[in-house]
């Protein structure tokens, strides 16, 4: 997994609540058996004027100029500013894969759906919960300032705005450690093979029907 330490990135706003993972990556693209290449189809139904299917040449498709991520000023954005309950719905990890492949490294919102939030950390993508008033202030600032960037420091747990305002955010110590060091969860868990075996043996004795 890619490390996340410090990011100084262009911000793009997506001003709607309850953005679900069906919207982030529509179902027809879930037929892929690969983990990469979902970026061109992130927000497919909002981003293009035609209906997208796997295998199309996305560079030739008509763009929806009204969709905020298509505006020239937000091209190359690495930080997504969103509203409450971002990533709700389906557990598809294709959603963070698509956002990461699109070029995003961090998402700031008042709240995230649990499964999506969890999936982000497995893919080097940092989801940051900020209070609604701060998110509101950031939306106004992004709107008013072309080229608006934020500096996100995971070690310090801070977001620094161009005017010097610093927003502190919370992140669980273990997730932070894994993200800062780009650690593979499976490798970490397998350091405790003996403990899993001991637990499993005990469980086998107490509830043998689970192992029949």
């Amino acid at each position: 997994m890619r490390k996340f330490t410090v990011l100084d990135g262009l911000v793009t706003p997506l001003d709607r609540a309850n953005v679900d993972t069906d919207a982030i990556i529509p179902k027809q693209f879930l037929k892929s058996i690969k983990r990469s290449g979902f970026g061109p189809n992130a927000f497919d139904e909002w981003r293009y004027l035609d209906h997208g299917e796997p295998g199309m040449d996305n560079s030739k498709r008509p763009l929806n100029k009204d969709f905020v991520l298509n505006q020239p000023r937000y091209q190359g954005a690495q930080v997504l500013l969103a509203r409450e309950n971002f990533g709700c719905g389906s557990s598809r990890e294709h959603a963070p894969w698509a956002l990461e492949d699109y070029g995003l490294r961090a998402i700031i919102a008042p709240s995230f759906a649990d499964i999506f939030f969890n999936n982000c950390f497995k893919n080097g993508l940092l989801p940051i919960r900020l209070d609604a008033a701060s998110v509101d202030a950031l939306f106004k600032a992004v709107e008013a300032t072309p080229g608006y960037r934020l500096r996100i420091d995971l070690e310090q747990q801070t977001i620094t705005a161009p005017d010097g305002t610093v927003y502190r955010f919370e992140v669980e110590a273990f997730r932070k450690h894994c993200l800062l060091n780009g650690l593979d969860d499976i490798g970490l868990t397998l350091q405790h093979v003996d403990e899993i075996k001991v637990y499993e043996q005990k469980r086998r004795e107490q509830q043998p029907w689970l192992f029949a």
Partner: protein
Amino acid sequence: MSAKTLYDKLWDSHVVRQEADGTAQIYIDRHLVHEVTSPQAFEGLRLAHRKPWRIASMLAVADHNVPTTGRDKGIADPISRLQVETLDQNCEELGITEFRMADLRQGIVHVIGPEQGATLPGMTVVCGDSHTSTHGAFAALAFGIGTSEVEHVMATQCLLMKQAKAMQVLVEGVLGKGVTAKDIALAVIGKIGTAGGTGYAIEFAGSAIRALSMEGRMTLCNMAIEAGARAGMIAADDTTISYLKGRPFAPQGESWDKAVAYWRTLHSDDGAQFDKVVRLAAAEIKPQVTWGTSPEMVVAVDGRVPDPASAPDEVKRQDWARALQYMGLTANTPISEIKIDKVFIGSCTNARIEDLRAAAAVARGKHVAANVKLAMVVPGSGLVKQQAEHEGLDKMFVAAGFEWRDPGCSMCLAMNDDRLAPGERCASTSNRNFEGRQGPGGRTHLVSPEMAAAAAIAGHFVDVSKL
């Protein structure tokens, strides 16, 4: 010892070890696998030269991509076909039990797990699918995971996670005529919102919940995720135990007796503390219909499409306005005046035998309205289909003008060929009314099976409690 919630009991009994910040390594008893969220996990295992930790914990089935008609001809779409064949190959190579498309036991993963007795009380159950919350109906800790975690469970039989907060949703009293578990689920979501359960595990309790069949309990827990909670659960009781008896994967003989004795402890203790309690009176719940593009955009069937001007805040006002535009609806329209184009009875929420019986009872001897282009019934599994046919439900549906299909996820998410055309309006027993969920530009109204069947017959929504 202090009083514990059901969630505490399930959590505590699965902790293998804990990090300093409270992140725990949780043991997983049952891993259900389907074709969409597993190929990258199998590939990851292979690349790392790892083998699944406990193959017997896994049960696999293809459900999202499978056709619901003309199945003998195979899957026409080559990309869908490759995904299903990839699952077949992975299972064959590793010796994982899989119900293939031609197997009578094939069906929606959240229907077949309980049907086979592969979901048991006291288990942790995971699947790369958010509706895994369904299995919590059996006093199991069941939740959806992403593909990285699918790989993690395959490789280690464990997951790393923190304990969620506990919410109790208490529904006391008796449900009115025509009011179902689906209506409880939608009423709860209407009350607490789609993010109301975020960060919580929900236990549904109270006399109205105890009175539900296992099918109803599964419908309710299935939709816990639509309230934002990864896990929903219900205490084990006689209903749970009699449902499981004799199921192929359930314990038998002496083992059964021992298991039942343990299962009977799987309830919240008297005086157990919840972080949040939400109360609903069963008698006040009416049949529900969603009007927008989020399950929380829901009203009773005798209500009206709300006016964005009356939204509680600016974000919601914009949300509602956008939803009305997408749905092609005008504020203040009575729900009963909304005409529909299609009807879908199916999905992991409402495709079990009881759901089909309820819908058939409404449709019996009547006919689908002329303005309804397609009304389809998609059983949750081959065994549900067989049982329904044994009871003659298929003939009732067909005589009433419904199509009788083969089992799968079908038009709940429209990954196969079953989908809405742009602008089409559907009365659907599924779980999500998101934009484009049932097909690009499609308009979904979530309802119970009874409500869907009644809408098919009338051509618009009707109040089944008045039939």
